[in-house]
């Protein structure tokens, strides 16, 4: 039993070194975006990260970015296997944006993070 308890403690310690406790807010879930269209989160926050995903497309281009005071800010990160994320330093009030990075329409979803380190 002692071994089991010690092992569990190590496992829990490893789990703590993760983003599993991130403060994440999903938005634009399941939105169907035309080619190169985008969808914004409804609220702004001191973002540390913003992710765009199409988990069910085998190889689709999705992009993650953000706006500041209504204007696009920073850059897009785009990935070709249905996932992209952009990290920020958390000092600005940003609105998460997901962007369809391909000409064809696709279903996407976004999630932004705050109070959570994003390396």
């Amino acid at each position, binding site marked *: *039993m002692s071994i*089991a*308890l010690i*092992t*569990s403690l190590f*496992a*829990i310690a*490893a*789990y703590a*070194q*993760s*983003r*599993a406790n*991130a403060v*994440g807010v999903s938005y634009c879930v399941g939105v169907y975006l035309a080619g190169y269209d985008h969808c914004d989160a409804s609220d702004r926050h001191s973002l540390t990260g913003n*992710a765009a*995903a199409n*988990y*069910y497309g*085998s*190889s689709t*281009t999705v*992009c*993650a*970015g953000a706006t500041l005071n209504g204007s*696009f*800010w*920073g*850059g*897009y*990160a*785009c*990935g*070709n*296997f*249905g*996932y*992209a*994320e*952009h*990290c*920020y*330093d958390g000092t600005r009030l940003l609105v998460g944006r997901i962007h369809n*990075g*391909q000409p064809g329409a696709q279903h996407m979803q976004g*999630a932004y993070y705050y109070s959570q*380190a*994003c*390396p």
Partner: protein
Amino acid sequence: MPIKRFLIMSSVAAASFAVTAAVVGAQDGPQPQTLADVPANQAAATDVDPSLARDFAAFRRSQRAGEARDGVGPFGANLALARRVDTAVGSVWIVPARGVVCLRAEDSAGSGWTCAAETQAAHGALMLAMRTSGDESGARVFGLLPDGASAPVMTTTGGSTAKVDMGPDGAFGVQAGRGTLEYDQGGARRTVTAP
């Protein structure tokens, strides 16, 4: 009373094993086929998955000084295990996660990530484009090609082509507009849309 004590101890032990299995087991299960099979938020990878080392040269060499960084990215991507490749358009980090491989690059606002299931990346070309707002003409495009890939060429939608300098780690970085990446693998010419 001894029976009651035994039952209590057994319950505690079983619960401990269950927690351990739930937390650690994710890395020992079957390989995910797509990112839909993997939770985005999970514990940091504790080592390089053997399948990653089998398919990508970068993970068969030792880490060099300065490559490891602190932090955990999506899907448990652990920067402490990362390999860095310096390209003409900036550095790209190849980061192992749990059944997943990720690319990370930096820009003036922070960093960008993309990931794919190891199976997907081994049969394709994982690419990360760092685009500047308002400029759709070009981007810094970073990529990772699996073992056996060769002769990569980037072709933009405008028709211009650029030879891609792929280093020994199978990674590259180029400035390119939207287009496709072509490369040889397994005796066939493959074409992948660049992000």
